[in-house]
């Protein structure tokens, strides 16, 4: 039997040795009368050699600050083209005595890819954030300059059934919050554009402007109001390779909402009006929730005119109807069910009913099982569409196992089915390994069935004190019109050359992906940007990073803080189990913020890290700005994480989508 060294969260915060006026009563007094036992002392030559401790040369003078610089080289084959990128990425943060904290992320790279040639083959992006500037009267200000996303008010962000995307821009954004009154002011202004680059994040500025102005306030006890204007020039659409490109199209949109929060009930009213090249359109929707003991009810009505727009990305429109969901959660049981009735206002969209049900039973501490059922019936559709999923989760000596069966029938087309086994192996701390095996027959968009078998491995960990490996690999064999054959992989090797210096190499190959036939929700907007073309890349990175600052200034630190590390990965949680299965895709280029102050971005494996964080409780928030729709992150206020001294607190943040 193998037990891992696990440190209980609360106790690891601080085990402080303090003076005591008397011997602590928990210590027995037996030693007073017994012959004292003398411990064996390990001879100097038998002591294990400890790995170098970078803390020993840590400069703890001044306020905390860090710098990071990377030299990057990439060679990629995408679609029919081959191109290279070389560039520099720099970043860092620094605290100031009176101006809050600053974070910088900047890239500059040269590419011979077609889409860059018009810009002198140069690409790049720069983002500077100043956060938490304290002013008199309880005001807290944050200001950004460079490549940003338009801000959203919390009322816009906390949507139950519909999602409002943000818009990327090159310009400035500002946010002012008054903790006392609850007033929040937001604004942004800049040039429209689109993220580009392969290994490095660049921003392609388009011919158009973006502006937003918004506020949220408390106008009565339990009541909040919010309003936001967003004007954009340009629209993001997929090109022939299903890559995101910018197209002409102007939108000016105004959102207004108000919410009421009671002890057990909540309600939010939303109005959206847009005007632009698609004409004038309006939308209104009401979401409500009630909590009664073990039950939670969510219900609402909506009407979204055809052509309704918000920014550059598609949103739900041409639909009216209502929905009701009920959820039950108690001890072993978790279940929910719901129904949507949807009518296309123009008559060109979906008209019908969508229903969903899910149940999970925890039979024991090691075994849980359940099923979900989704059905979509369109008016005039004889057969309707169904999808169902059956699963069992078992914890065993090997780790955690999920066995899953997915079935789908779409109208008169052939059935899709898939059997999969996901195994997350129990490995030593700071290592992870999981495997997925799936086999099925899938029907895409009414074409003939494609048989497919795939095996995926995902994992990582330290190979030696200076060498670590991280990545995923998938092998696929198929037969049919949409068959993929061959292997996908995304593997990174990191070599710590010496303190502060690291060299990493990454190989990446993707055969592309398609929309799952098991997703039936008619209100799920298209996902063109995760359906990538065939892509093969090699990345090399030489990295330097250094942190300094007095001990109490470690990230999020209290006086006298010892430090640990937070690392993690963001992924698209296809099976919605909260665990990263080997077959689930990483979410790259997502901003992750520690304690609302220090931000980093996920890399192409979806990984992020905060290397030096004060021991204690912290809040990690993922900003889903660049998450492909309709994925969202459930932990809106962030995820609490406990950091223990010299330990790596590893987070797995799964983006979800409604089925």
């Amino acid at each position, binding site marked *: *039997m193998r037990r891992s060294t696990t440190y209980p969260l609360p106790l690891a915060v601080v085990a*402080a*040795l303090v003076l005591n*006026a008397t011997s602590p009563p*928990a210590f*027995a007094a037996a*030693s007073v009368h017994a012959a004292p036992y003398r*411990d064996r002392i390990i001879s100097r030559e038998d*002591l294990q050699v400890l790995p170098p401790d970078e803390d020993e040369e840590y400069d703890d003078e001044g306020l905390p600050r860090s710098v990071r610089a990377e030299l990057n080289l990439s060679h990629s084959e995408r679609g029919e083209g081959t191109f290279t990128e070389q560039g520099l990425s720099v970043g860092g943060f620094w605290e100031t005595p009176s101006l809050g904290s600053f974070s910088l992320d900047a890239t500059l790279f040269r590419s011979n890819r077609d889409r860059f040639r018009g810009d002198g083959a140069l690409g790049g992006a720069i983002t500077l954030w100043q956060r938490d500037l304290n002013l008199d009267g309880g005001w807290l200000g944050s200001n950004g300059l460079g490549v940003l996303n338009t801000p959203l008010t919390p009322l816009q962000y906390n949507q139950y059934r519909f999602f409002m995307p943000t818009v990327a821009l090159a310009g400035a954004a500002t946010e002012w919050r008054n903790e006392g009154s609850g007033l929040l002011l937001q604004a942004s202004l800049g040039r429209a554009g689109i993220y580009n680059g392969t290994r490095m994040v660049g921003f392609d500025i388009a011919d158009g402007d973006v502006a937003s102005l918004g506020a949220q306030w408390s106008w009565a006890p339990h009541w909040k109001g919010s309003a936001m204007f967003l004007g954009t020039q340009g629209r993001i659409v997929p090109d022939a390779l299903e890559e995101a490109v910018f197209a002409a199209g102007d939108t000016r949109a105004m959102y207004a909402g108000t919410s009421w929060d009671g002890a057990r009930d909540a309600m939010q009213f939303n109005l959206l009006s847009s005007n632009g090249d698609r004409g004038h359109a309006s939308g209104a929707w009401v979401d409500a929730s009630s909590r009664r003991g073990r039950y939670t009810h969510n219900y609402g009505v909506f009407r979204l005119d055809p052509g309704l727009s918000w920014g550059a990305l598609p949103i739900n429109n041409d639909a009216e109807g209502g929905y009701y969901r009920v959820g039950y959660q108690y001890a*072993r049981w978790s279940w929910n069910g719901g129904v949507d009735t949807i009518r296309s206002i123009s008559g060109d969209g979906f008209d019908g009913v969508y229903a969903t049900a899910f149940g999970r039973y925890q039979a024991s501490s090691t075994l849980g099982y359940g099923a979900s059922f989704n059905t979509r019936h369109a008016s005039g559709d004889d057969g309707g569409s169904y999808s169902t999923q059956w699963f069992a989760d078992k914890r065993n000596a090997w780790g955690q196992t999920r066995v899953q069966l997915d079935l789908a029938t779409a109208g008169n087309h052939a059935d899709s089915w898939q059997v999969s086994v996901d195994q997350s192996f129990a490995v030593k701390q700071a290592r992870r390994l999981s495997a997925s095996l799936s086999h099925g027959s899938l029907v895409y968009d009414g074409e003939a069935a494609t048989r497919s078998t795939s095996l995926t491995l995902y994992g990582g960990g330290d190979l030696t004190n200076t060498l670590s490996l991280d990545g995923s690999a998938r092998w696929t064999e198929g037969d049919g019109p949409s068959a993929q054959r061959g292997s996908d992989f995304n593997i990174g090797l990191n070599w710590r050359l010496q303190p502060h210096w690291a060299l990493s190499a990454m190989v990446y190959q993707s055969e592309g992906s398609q929309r799952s036939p098991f997703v039936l929700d008619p209100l799920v907007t298209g996902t063109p940007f995760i359906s990538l073309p065939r892509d093969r890349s090699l990345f090399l990175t030489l990295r330097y990073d250094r942190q300094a600052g007095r001990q109490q200034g470690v990230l999020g630190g209290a006086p006298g803080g010892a430090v640990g590390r937070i690392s993690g990965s963001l992924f698209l949680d296809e099976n919605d189990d909260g665990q990263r299965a080997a077959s689930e895709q990483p979410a790259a280029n997502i901003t992750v913020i520690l304690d609302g102050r220090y931000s980093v971005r996920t890399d192409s494996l979806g990984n992020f890290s905060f290397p030096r964080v004060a021991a204690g409780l912290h809040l990690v928030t993922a900003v889903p700005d660049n998450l492909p729709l309709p994925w969202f992150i459930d932990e809106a206020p962030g995820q609490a994480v406990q950091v223990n001294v010299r330990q790596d607190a590893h987070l797995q943040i799964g983006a979800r989508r409604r089925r």
Partner: protein
Amino acid sequence: MSPILPGRLLLAMCGLLLSMTALAGSFSVLVSPPRFEDSAKPGTTYRNVVEISNLSGQTAHLSLKTAEWHLDAGGAAVFSEELAQGSCRPWVGLEAPEVTIAANGKRRYRFEVAVPADAPAGECRFAILLEGDPESVQGGVVVPVSGRIGIIVYLSVGDASARLAVAGQQLLTMEGNLLPALRVRNEGNAHGRLEGFIDGKDASGRRFTFTPSSLPVLAGETRDIVLTPQSDNDRAPAPAIVYPLSLKGRLDFDSQHLDIETIFAR
């Protein structure tokens, strides 16, 4: 498996650690991790490292030694420096009997357990005690004061495992609530913790799901494990039980389980 330190042990240790902060003020040390749970094979040497940080602005001089420990009836750790019969402490080696850590400094401290090749399957359980130098309290009255902390180590050797059995039951009052408790005996050679769900129905017909306390049952000991009813949600108060209460279900530990079917009455 993700073992959780028992709540009362946690409280007891925190109480111990924090009780005299105001009195002392100038002297505090942070130790991480506070607990090790691991395994080793006979004939091998298990090695690990404790990090000790001095949070005070003064140099800290600490002595370190091993100790026996067990849990009292309330779940609090009780330490003893006397060598117990059958103790594995003679296998344990420490880096140094005392260390000095500069103000706001830290130090990695190594220890090892050399498990003999003929060691029987079982659990090597000991603590590493850190003790500060006696000091004087400010304010004119000279009273020697000192502080201690115990780092708990469980090291499973060979095929050690818990073997838990129910030896009785009773009702216990916990924070004003009368709750069912199972008297659990461990006849195995490693500690065990119960987890899982028990379904219950009280005299009023209300149904609850109960979960067991996460206190470990050490090898050879018998301990009361309280079963706590789950609230409807995180804002709901603890449910009131009307006795008699019928319980039925299965509790797991390691890869084994205990079937429970019983009635609790006042």
